[in-house]
Structure formats: structure tokens, C-alpha cells
């Protein structure tokens, strides 16, 4: 993939069929779908180039070759005031995370905004879990009256889930659970003996619960030119085999292969260019972060895929006389109804049995307990529900941190695996609330002169009630499985799940929503927003698969309309 910069300013050479803003998990899919449909596409990305394999400098680094063994110095951490809180922050991954010192934002209330501003975005760091939503989720807003109704249902998205799963390669098992529809899967990862034990005990204790292998976009066999997983569980460093799906390993090289892609890193969007005569976008104005030049690019259609909050920020900073509160915001809903899964709650426990069984290699996958609350009827004092990601392994030498002991025997004991450890973490749905919002600052600007984002979000009463049940449910399940040393934990800061959703929601009604059922702006017909900002609710499943499916569906709609009418 050879990115090249266009310095010519003539309208003609700066004109494309489509412009995609952002190259992360949805921008990549938009680029691929649109280029494969024959459109000439410009992808603008604010960060640097990250080329598959070549730009994964720590992919094969041995532990002892990190001078601080992957810790970072306090001096270095000053640049990563927020990002350093990420569970996988370290010397090995910081190259894929933004420097907070260069990309400030305002936390009106505490909010961890984890960002990966580079080609590929956070698709280099995502947890890769891929679950379909079901009509339990699509109908929830309509049924309980929180948020606006989703303008589509499972049957509308089902073929596009299929399309994306086939393309990115999702390993998983067809478990036949109604509210977690089965998809098109590569063979699942194997469970270890303790996971099988837990599955058996949980099934015995609770009729409505199941523990399944995580469905993840990590290849268990070679697929679409990428190699199968080699069992290292170091996906976050960039995988030389391309086993975990990323834009870098998948969609961008595939888009490039069509000959229709121009990828332009170092391109910070200053604003979308709105034409009030046609009520359409003409294109996009960017700042080249290397040359400081301001350059305009033009296209028939613009796909905004700059991440949930990035896309909304761009719309807000593109305000015009016609749209004084943010472009495409006649509804006033832009910036509102911000959600993130509330997680970091659950418990860990240990098991001393199954000593003669171990696993081989490291698996980039957890086991998963699908949602079981409020499924067939409302059975809880709160609305919606939660699911679990459960990480299971045997203790290693890090157990020595927490126990007394020194000397030869103790050292030798640490070279052997210890007890099994189960770490159950619940992920809960957050209701869409008007007051959970982002705005752009009227006073603070970044080094490009662009207003910084202000984030104002907190979890509400429904989430608090749900968390009591999440905690208790976890402890009960671990007790029912005869685990020892059960330790609950509870520590949620909004944003930390990195499942931020909403702020440019879809809906039927242009008066209350920003986007229609095709992720198309109600106000401006050649503008599509297909990342997490479009979500009208936040079902507890990991959301990236849904974003990708919505993106592919919107691309198909836009391409067909363009081919039929020549315009949108």
C-alpha cells in the first residue's frame, strides 16, 4: 500500500467519487465496499501511516528486550495522561495510542477517551469480540420508551452481518441462543478443561444461562489471504500473521488492490464543505499535519467514520449559518445520548482441581455468558441487561506478588502453574440519556486551532441498579461452581469500555434523530455516518460487528443510488 500526498489544488485532481473520513474499523469497511463497487475513493486519516507487518515494531520483541519490561517511565506517561489507564497500555502498544498531550479534551465529568489516531485506528487494538444484535435489542427502545426506536430490525441487518463475518473471519460456535443469533463462523477456539467445568456447573445451576466460547474476529484457519492464529495473544502489538482482523490487515489492502483507493494519512479534517445552494456536501477541508497546508477535496458522497466522538466533533466544528448548532443537526440531537457499556464489575475466583490439565499457547479469546436478564419477560428492577466476558488461565509467577515467601523452594514453585483463575467481567447496557452529551469548547482549541471536545457523561439510576445485580450474580455463579478466594471488583469510569456509542443517532423522525435507517443524514442526503455515533441504544454485546454491518449496508445503498441517479 503506497499512500501518496496530492499537493495539486486543481478541483479536478482533488475530486473523487467518495471521501471516507477515518480508516479504523468502519472507515476501512467503507473504503473496501466503495472501491470494490468501482468508486474512486479518498480515505483521509488524521494520524500516521501504519502499514501491515512493516509498522509493527514490537510484534516479535522478547520480554527481556523491553528495557523496563514493558512498563513506561513517569516521564513518558506525562504524554499519556488518559491512555496510560488502558488495560493494555505499555511500551508494546503505546505506538497505537494517541498522545493526550497533543490531543486534549475536557472531562466535564470523568471520562476515559481512548483513541488510536493512525491508519487502522483502534482496529489494531480492539478485543475482536463479534456478536450479532437481535430483535430483543432492536425493539428495546420502542418497548420501554427510552431513546428513539431503531429504524431497522434484525432481518434488515442479518445479510450484512453475514457479509461482514464472511469477510473478516469470525471464529465461533453456533450455540442456538435466540437473543444472540448464530452467524457464519470459522471453527471455534477450543475451551480448556476448566472452562468446560464452569460451563457444566453453570448450566446445572441455572437453566437459562450458558457459557460459550467467545466469537472473535481471529482466524482459526487461513482466510481471505490472512493467516490463522499462532497462539500468542499479542494481537495488540500488531500481528504479523494478520490473524486478528484489522483495517490494516484486511480492508485497506483489499481496497488498495482495486486500484480505486487513495489513502491520505496526516490529514486532519477542519470541516466538511457544505453548499447551501444544493443542500449537499461538496467535500472536505483538511489540514496536512506535516506541511500545515489547508487543502480541499471534493466528492459526490462523504462517509464519516472518524470514531463515535470524532465524527460528532467534526459535524459540530463544521457548523454553518444554516446549521448553527452543528452540521446536519436540525434535530438538535447531535452530541446527545452518549452511551458506553458500564463494565469493570464482577469477581474473580480460583479453583484447585484439574491439576493434570493445561492448555498450550495463549488464546486471544475469552469465554462468554450471553445476556440472561429481562430476556423473555421483564424480571428485574431495572431495564435491559448485561453479558459476561470471562478470562480463564492458570496462575503464573505474578502470584508471587501477593503471597509471602522467598528463597529456593518458593522460586521453584513460581516456575510451575498455580491454581486456575476465573475472572468474570460483566458488560451492561446503558440507557440513552439526553444529558449525557458532548459539545465543542467555545474557548479551548487544539494546536490546529480546532475547538476541543467537552465530554459530560455519567451512569444513571438504571445502570446503578443493574450493577448491584451484576456483582451479586457473578459472586453467586462462582460460588455455585465451588471456586475459592472469590474477590468482587467494581470500578467503572465512563468511556473505559471503549464502547462509546451514540451522539448522532439513527431514527425514523428527522425532528429527533440525525440519521435515517440507511445511516444517511436526514438533513444532507450525501452525508453518511456509519460508526458508533449512529447507535440509538447500547445493547450489551460488543458493538464493532454491528458498526461494520451497518457500514456495508449503507455503502450498498449509496452505491446503488449513485449508479441509478448519478447523485444522492
Amino acid at each position, binding site marked *: 500500500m503506497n499512500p501518496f500526498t496530492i499537493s495539486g489544488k486543481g478541483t479536478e485532481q482533488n475530486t473523487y467519487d467518495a471521501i471516507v473520513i477515518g480508516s479504523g474499523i468502519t472507515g476501512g469497511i467503507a473504503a473496501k465496499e466503495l472501491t470494490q463497487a468501482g468508486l474512486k475513493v479518498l480515505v483521509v486519516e488524521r494520524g500516521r501511516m501504519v502499514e501491515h*507487518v512493516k509498522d509493527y515494531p*514490537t510484534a*516479535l*520483541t*522478547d*520480554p*527481556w*528486550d*523491553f*528495557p*523496563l*519490561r*514493558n*512498563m513506561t517511565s*513517569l*516521564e513518558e506517561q506525562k504524554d499519556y495522561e488518559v491512555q496510560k489507564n488502558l*488495560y*493494555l497500555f505499555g511500551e508494546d502498544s503505546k505506538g497505537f495510542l494517541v498522545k493526550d498531550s497533543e490531543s486534549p479534551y475536557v472531562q466535564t465529568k470523568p471520562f476515559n477517551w481512548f483513541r488510536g489516531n493512525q491508519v487502522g485506528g483502534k482496529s489494531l487494538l480492539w478485543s475482536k469480540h463479534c456478536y450479532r444484535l437481535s430483535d430483543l435489542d432492536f425493539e428495546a427502545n420502542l418497548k420501554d420508551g427510552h431513546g428513539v426506536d431503531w429504524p431497522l430490525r434484525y432481518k434488515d441487518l442479518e445479510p450484512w452481518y453475514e457479509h461482514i463475518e464472511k469477510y473478516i473471519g469470525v471464529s465461533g460456535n453456533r450455540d442456538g441462543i435466540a437473543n444472540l443469533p448464530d452467524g457464519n463462523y470459522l471453527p471455534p*477456539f*477450543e*475451551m*480448556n*478443561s476448566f472452562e468446560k467445568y464452569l460451563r457444566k456447573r453453570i448450566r446445572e445451576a441455572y437453566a437459562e444461562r450458558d457459557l460459550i466460547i467467545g466469537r472473535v474476529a481471529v482466524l482459526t484457519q*487461513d482466510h481471505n*489471504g490472512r*493467516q*490463522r*492464529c*499462532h*497462539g*500468542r*495473544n*499479542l494481537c495488540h502489538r500488531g500481528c*504479523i*500473521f494478520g490473524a486478528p482482523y484489522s483495517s490494516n490487515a484486511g480492508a485497506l489492502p483489499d481496497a488498495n488492490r482495486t486500484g480505486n483507493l487513495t489513502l491520505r494519512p496526516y490529514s486532519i479534517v477542519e470541516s466538511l464543505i457544505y453548499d447551501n445552494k444544493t443542500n449537499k456536501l461538496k467535500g472536505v477541508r483538511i489540514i496536512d499535519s506535516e506541511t500545515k497546508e489547508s487543502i480541499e477535496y471534493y466528492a459526490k458522497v462523504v462517509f464519516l467514520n472518524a470514531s463515535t466522538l470524532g465524527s460528532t466533533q467534526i459535524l459540530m466544528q463544521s457548523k454553518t449559518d444554516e446549521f448553527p448548532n452543528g452540521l446536519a443537526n436540525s434535530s438538535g440531537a447531535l452530541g446527545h445520548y452518549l452511551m458506553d457499556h458500564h463494565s469493570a464489575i464482577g469477581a474473580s475466583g480460583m479453583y484447585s482441581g484439574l*491439576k*493434570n*490439565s*493445561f*492448555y*498450550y*499457547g*495463549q*488464546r486471544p479469546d475469552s469465554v462468554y455468558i450471553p445476556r440472561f436478564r429481562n430476556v423473555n419477560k421483564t424480571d428485574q428492577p431495572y431495564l435491559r441487561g448485561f453479558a459476561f466476558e470471562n478470562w480463564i488461565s*492458570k496462575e*503464573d*509467577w*505474578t502470584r*508471587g*506478588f501477593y503471597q509471602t*515467601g*522467598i*528463597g*529456593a523452594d518458593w*522460586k*521453584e514453585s*513460581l*516456575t*510451575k*502453574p498455580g491454581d486456575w483463575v476465573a475472572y468474570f467481567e460483566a458488560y451492561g447496557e446503558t440507557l440513552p440519556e439526553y444529558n449525557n452529551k458532548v459539545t465543542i469548547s467555545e474557548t479551548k482549541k487544539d494546536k490546529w486551532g480546532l475547538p476541543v471536545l467537552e465530554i459530560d457523561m455519567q451512569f444513571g439510576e438504571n445502570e446503578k441498579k443493574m450493577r448491584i445485580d451484576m456483582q451479586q450474580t457473578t459472586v453467586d455463579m462462582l460460588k455455585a461452581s465451588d471456586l475459592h478466594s472469590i474477590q468482587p471488583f467494581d470500578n467503572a469510569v465512563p468511556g473505559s469500555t471503549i464502547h462509546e456509542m451514540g451522539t448522532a443517532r439513527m431514527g425514523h423522525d428527522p425532528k429527533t434523530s440525525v440519521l435515517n435507517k440507511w445511516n444517511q443524514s436526514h438533513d444532507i442526503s450525501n452525508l453518511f455516518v456509519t460508526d458508533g455515533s449512529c447507535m440509538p441504544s447500547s445493547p450489551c454485546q460488543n458493538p464493532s460487528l454491528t458498526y461494520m454491518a451497518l457500514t456495508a449496508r449503507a455503502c450498498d445503498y449509496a452505491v446503488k443510488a449513485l449508479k441509478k441517479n448519478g447523485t444522492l
Partner: protein
Amino acid sequence: MNRRQVIQSLGLISSHAVFPSVLSSFLASCQAKEPKDYTPEFFTDDEMKTIIATIDVIIPETNTISASQVGTHKFLDQVFSKCLNTDQQHVIKEGIAQLSKELASADDKQKYLIDLDKKAYSNDASSTYFKTIKQYTIVGFFTSQEGTTKASNYVKIPEAYKGEIPADENTLNYGRTNLHYYI
């Protein structure tokens, strides 16, 4: 690309038997070349002597070499210098002063450290510094080349994950590669 091609594209000669060692010598990005004469940044020379004596009681030579033989004292010096804040550094400094004195006058140094370790884990505030030294000593040893490849079973490229394999009391754990610790 298949695995062979990936490896070749990285400039490696693919011979399965020597694969991990070839890889480790190849890595350009993180060659932490250690200077022959290490000058401590955090410890004084006297403190360094106390640290070496202490960590070699915590992790002595057994089937594998000791903590100081893999350079854990230098690792501690680097971590304490770069990753601890002033307050934390002060606690360590004070602790080592106490440790130097008491260790020098202890008849049985090993027994003294065993008792100190027990105190540190019974939430005795005056000995929490020892817990910190011990925790980073564990990291320093087990993430060293010796700790990863000899005190652990290091499989750099496992080829494919398997859910269940047999184990017995002699089975070593895997060399830890996912280096995120919670100390």
C-alpha cells in the same frame, strides 16, 4: 502469505529448529544493549550491595541462576529511578537504609529476610518497601531471558492454541509474554 513467507519477508531464514533463537537475534526494534559497566541512577554503591544481597536471598541460584546474575538489581535501579514518584522513592530509600543496618547486624541473614517478608505481608507499614522490592524482583527475574526461557517454558510462536494438554507436577508454566502487571 503463509508463515514461511511472513518470516522470509521479515528477512529471516526459516528453519524450524532454530526459529525462536533466530528471531530473537534479529529483532532490531528493541535491542536493549546493556553497557558493560553499569552506573546506578537511583541506588548508591552501598545500597546496590544491599540490594544484590537481598534479591539473591529472594531469588537464589537453583536450577536456574539467581536474581542478580540476570541483572535484576540493575532493573530495580532503572524502575525505581524512572517509574516511581518522589514519595515512593523516598519510602524505598528509607527502607534500604533500615535494611542495610539490620541486615549487617543479623546473624542469620536469610532468617531475617524471611521474617521481614512475613511482616511486609501482614500490612506492617514499616516494611511495605520490602514488598515493592520483592514484587519488582519477581518481574525482573521472570521476564529476563533466563527467567523466560529457562525458569519457564518459552514458546515464542506456539503455532496453534490447544485447549487441553496433559500436565504433571514437573510441568513448567509458559514464559509470560503479555507484559501487563498489576503491582
